[in-house]
Structure formats: C-alpha cells, structure tokens
C-alpha cells in the first residue's frame, strides 16, 4: 500500500523569534533523526504545520534551502484559528510537519539571468530563501535586485538583515505605503519601484513576485510594461489548503491546484485567472 500522504511528523520548536506586529519566525527540528537528515526543500515550497486538536495551516519555508530537517524555518503571521494556536506554543513543544509541498521558485532558470525579486509585506518570507541562494552563489546570476514594500518603515520584516543583503551585492530598494518624518526613502506602492528601476535589460531579466494578489497583479503589469515577457515573471499564489497534494479541491484556482501546480506559477498560466477577482 502506498504511503499515507496525510501523515504528519512530529517536530520540536527549537527557537521562536518575534519579528514585527503579530509575526514570528519559528525554527523546527523533526523528531525522527532519519527524517530530519533527509528532509530537504526548494525555495518557494511550504509545509503543512499541524497543531493536533486544532488543525493544519500551509506556511512557506523562509530559511535557506541548504537547511535540512534539523532546522526548518517558518515565518508565521497570527491570523486564523491554527496560527493563533501556534502563537500559544513555546520552545520545546511539538508541532506536526507535513511536506515539503508545492512547486518551488524556478531556481535553475535564474542562472545567468538578471534577477528582480519583488516582495510586499509578508511576501518577503517565501522569497527569503531565494535571497539566501543569491547571496550564496552570486556568480551563478547576473544583476541581483530586490524591490521590497512594507506598510511603514517600522514594519519592515527582516529589517536587520537588509544591510547584509546589500553588502552581498544585491541592489535593495525599499518603499513604504506610509512614510514617517524620519523616513527618507521611497513612499508609494511596490509596482512603482518596477516602473522606475533603472537599467533593466529585459531579455535577460526574470522577475519573482510575492505579496498580496493585487500587488502581484500590478507588479506583473509593470514588469510587462518594462519589457519583460509573460514567461519571465513568476508569482506565488495562496488559497485555502487542506490536503496540500491536489486532491481535496480547496485550493483550486482556475485550472490550477495551487498546492501542486503552485504556489509558484508562471505569469502566463496565471494571467487569465488573475483577471477574475473571485475565481
């Protein structure tokens, strides 16, 4: 009989790092050492995190893809029932892990290309593994750029890491929806950063976008206006997920099972469905 795709695996919470607002980054260690040693993921994938008695929630990995199952990193915002239950857990307690699931960012196709990462709010979390990859092997890529939007300057996720990203040669542009008196950076919505980005060599450029759906929609449009093609823009979509292996039907979006064909989807396959808001 085949493996049970519903089976979750116990993992210990090793570390909880409070980020901003109601966001925290958890580091997990799979309890079974063989599973831990063999667990690998690709940037953009997610795990189903399980709180017995409460339920499961799909959370992207936000750490480097070089990590194995001794150190799985998730950045989680408290929103619904399950994330509220996760917020109440402490270091040393256990959580169930099922994964990795989903189609990852197209890392291979970024080699030799200029890479533009476009993130907004919590959308930075599924892109951070890509940032780490860009830092680890810079020679594999062309120009590396990160366009990053937040609500206000004090609500920048991973703010203390941004300098190290810049130091590794990634051109980081930050924008906020609402400025403050001390803020001398850009004020305005993320797609504007794409509109104004200097020196885009569009045939050589691939854009990875992650954030609220509307932001991704307009970012893609701005990318196309700058000469990128529909095949060189990638999004990460979100929908209700339960099985996470393309069988329960919850995450359907047009022809896609977001858990399986996505969450990372190439823009040309996403565009027809993005146009219809309540699809």
């Amino acid at each position: 009989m085949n493996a049970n795709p519903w089976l979750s695996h116990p993992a210990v919470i090793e570390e909880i790092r409070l980020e901003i607002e109601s966001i925290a980054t958890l580091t997990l260690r799979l309890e079974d050492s063989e599973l831990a040693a063999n667990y690998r993921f690709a940037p953009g994938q997610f795990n189903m995190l399980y709180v017995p008695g409460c339920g499961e929630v799909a959370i992207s990995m936000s750490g480097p893809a070089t990590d194995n199952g001794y150190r799985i990193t998730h950045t989680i915002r408290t929103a619904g029932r399950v994330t509220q239950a996760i917020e109440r857990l402490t270091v040393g307690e256990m959580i169930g892990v099922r994964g990795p699931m989903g189609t990852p960012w197209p890392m291979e196709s970024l080699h030799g290309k200029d890479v533009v990462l476009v993130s907004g709010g919590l959308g930075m979390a599924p892109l951070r593994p890509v940032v780490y990859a860009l830092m680890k092997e810079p020679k594999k890529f062309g120009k590396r750029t990160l366009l990053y939007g937040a609500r206000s300057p004090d609500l920048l996720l991973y703010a203390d890491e941004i300098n190290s990203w810049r130091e590794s040669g990634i051109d980081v542009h930050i924008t906020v929806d609402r400025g403050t008196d001390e803020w001398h950076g850009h004020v305005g919505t993320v797609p504007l950063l794409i509109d104004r980005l200097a020196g885009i060599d569009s045939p050589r450029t691939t854009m990875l976008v992650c954030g609220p759906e509307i932001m991704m929609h307009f970012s893609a449009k701005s990318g196309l206006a700058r000469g990128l093609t529909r095949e060189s823009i990638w999004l990460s979509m979100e929908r209700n997920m339960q099985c996470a292996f393309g069988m329960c039907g919850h995450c359907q979006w047009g022809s896609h099972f977001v858990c399986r064909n996505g969450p990372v989807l190439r823009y040309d396959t996403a565009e027809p469905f993005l146009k219809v808001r309540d699809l």
Partner: protein
Amino acid sequence: MADEDEKLWWIDRDGLQQLIDYLADQGHEIVGPRIDQGAIVYDSVRHVDELPRGWTDDSQPGVYRILPRPDKEHFGFNVGPHSWKKYLFPPLTQVMRSRRKPDGWTMQSPEFENRRYAFLGVRACELAAIAVQDQVFVNGETQDPLYQLRRSQLFIVAVNCTQAAATCFCTSMGTGPECKKGFDLALTEIENGFLLAIASDAGRKAADAIPKRTALPEETQSGQQRRHRAREQITRRLNTEGIRDRLLARLDHPHWDDVASRCLSCANCTLVCPTCFCHSVDEVHHLTDDEIVRNRRWDSCFNVDFSHVAGGSVRDTTRARYRQWLTHKLATWIDQFGTSGCVGCGRCIAWCPVGIDLTQEVATLCAEDGP
C-alpha cells in the same frame, strides 16, 4: 458490448442469484440497487428479491420519483441519488491520528478500513465516473491509500441500460449508454433473463461458477434492440465542442448572475454527482484531549467557507460558487485530469431543488458566437 467477437452468454434469475452467492463466498460485500424511502439507492444486496424488480424511475429537472412498471424487470430504471463513490471514497473516514506523550505527540496512520466490494448494476455512465475518480485518487502523483485498496479489490457487474431517463445525456459525454470497458461482467436484461458478457479473468472465473448457456441469436438481437432503445430515448444534449475554451472565455458573462438568482447553493448537485471529490478534514477529540483523530469528510465547493482564506472566502457569492462548480466540472477538469468531469448521468438536474439544468445553462452561456 464488451467486444463484438466476445461470446455472449445467457443466464436466468437463478443464475444471477448464484452469481451473488459466488461473490459472497469469495468474500465480497455485494452492493446494488434497492428501494429505500421512495428512491432507488445503493445498499447491501444478498438476494435477487431485494432488487427493485418491477420498478422504474422518473427523473426531471427538480423531480425524482419511482413508479411501478408493467413488467417485472430487475434493472428497469436509471440512476438515483446514490453513486458508487460512497464506497470507494467514503463520506467519512479517518486519515491520521495523534496521541499525546509527555514531551509532545506521536503521529500515526489509521487502520485503513479495507472492504472487498462487488458492485451489482453499474451503468455505463457510472463506469465512466469510476474511471474519472481513478484519475483523481490513484493515477496522479499522489494516491489515496483507502481508495486504492478498495479499488484493487473491487468486482464490477455492469448493467446495460435498456431505457433512458429524461435527465440522461451520456451520449453527449461519450460515456454510454453501452458498457464498453471497466467491468468484470456485464448484463443486459431481456424478456426471459439476462445476456452475460465476460470482460476479465475475474469475470471469467465467476462466470465459470454459475449455470449458463450460449445466448440464442434471437436473444442477442433482443439485447441489441433494448440497448438501442436506451440510446433512442435520450433527448437531452450538451454541446461539448470547444466547451473548455468557451466557458473559460465567459467567466464574466452576465448569465452567471441569472443562475445565481436561482441557485440555492445547497450542495445537492455535488452530493449526488458521481465524480465530485472535494473533501475537508476535521479534528476529533477522542474521550480526552490525549487522543486526536483527523477525519476526512465529503465537502462541497458550494459551502461558503470552502474557499476561506485570511480575511474571508474568496468565493463569497453564490454566483462565484456556481461558476466554480460548472467551470470545474466541464472545463478546468479537462486541464487537470485529461477528461471532462461530467459523465452525463443527469443526477444534478433531477436532484437540484430548483431544477437547474447544466445542459441548459451551458447552452445559454455559449449561445452567441464568441472567442
């Protein structure tokens, strides 16, 4: 028919009973049509007397009832509210369990409830529906263990329809009315008994164990005429030409508002549909909080919470949910699984409380020439 060259046999009522007995001896739980609460449903069958002999059904949009027949046919009806999916893909089943221990949890698979079924009386559209669900649960990247178990032990006795209901449109979907593949044995009821076709090794073994003789030419001909009658009686049509592109080009068509004004979002259609597979998982606490079980249960895209994400449901209107159901069933299903999700059984038409007919809705949606 299984194969034009394949030999046709003839058995009588007693032979059918012996077939049931043989299957029971082989450890099968035989399930088939029975009358319950004014409908022909699927339930345990151990004796031919339990079949709806002398009954037929009347299916119209929003209407279903059973009526006595002038003859004594055992299978003189089409389909009722049940489909065979409830056996391979049970409405409620355990998928995982967790037990608390001092430093956390152990997590295990459940004992999968394996059953060795024999389906008696599967129509051509239903054979197609089983094949459609095979694509979902077994033939993809991931397999559902319970479905796979039960499916591998399944024995199917198909039945060729000898009449059609007003709601049938299997001919439009290319799924019937003749049974062509996906079964072990196939029956066609004629005046004096049943024609029998063998389509598998397991079927041959079963046929060897029961009294039968070669069908006479006039019996074979009678069978052909009756199957042809079923085809002739089909009046409902669904135009499937280019349907995938047509529907996906009309996601903002004003007609969705019209359907939404009638649709109750009651989920009946998804319950009776033999191919619908959407489900959800729930946590169940056993006795104390120390043992938690995860149950999988049928769900429906018509339920308002089905598409819930942080901030609310993506499909928060009946319009959005009806559109999801119809475009999934007839269009995006093709992208996902290579075939249509609809087999033309017509159940959704009969069991919709307001009689929404998807063949009509599609015709209206795709009416004017467009992209």
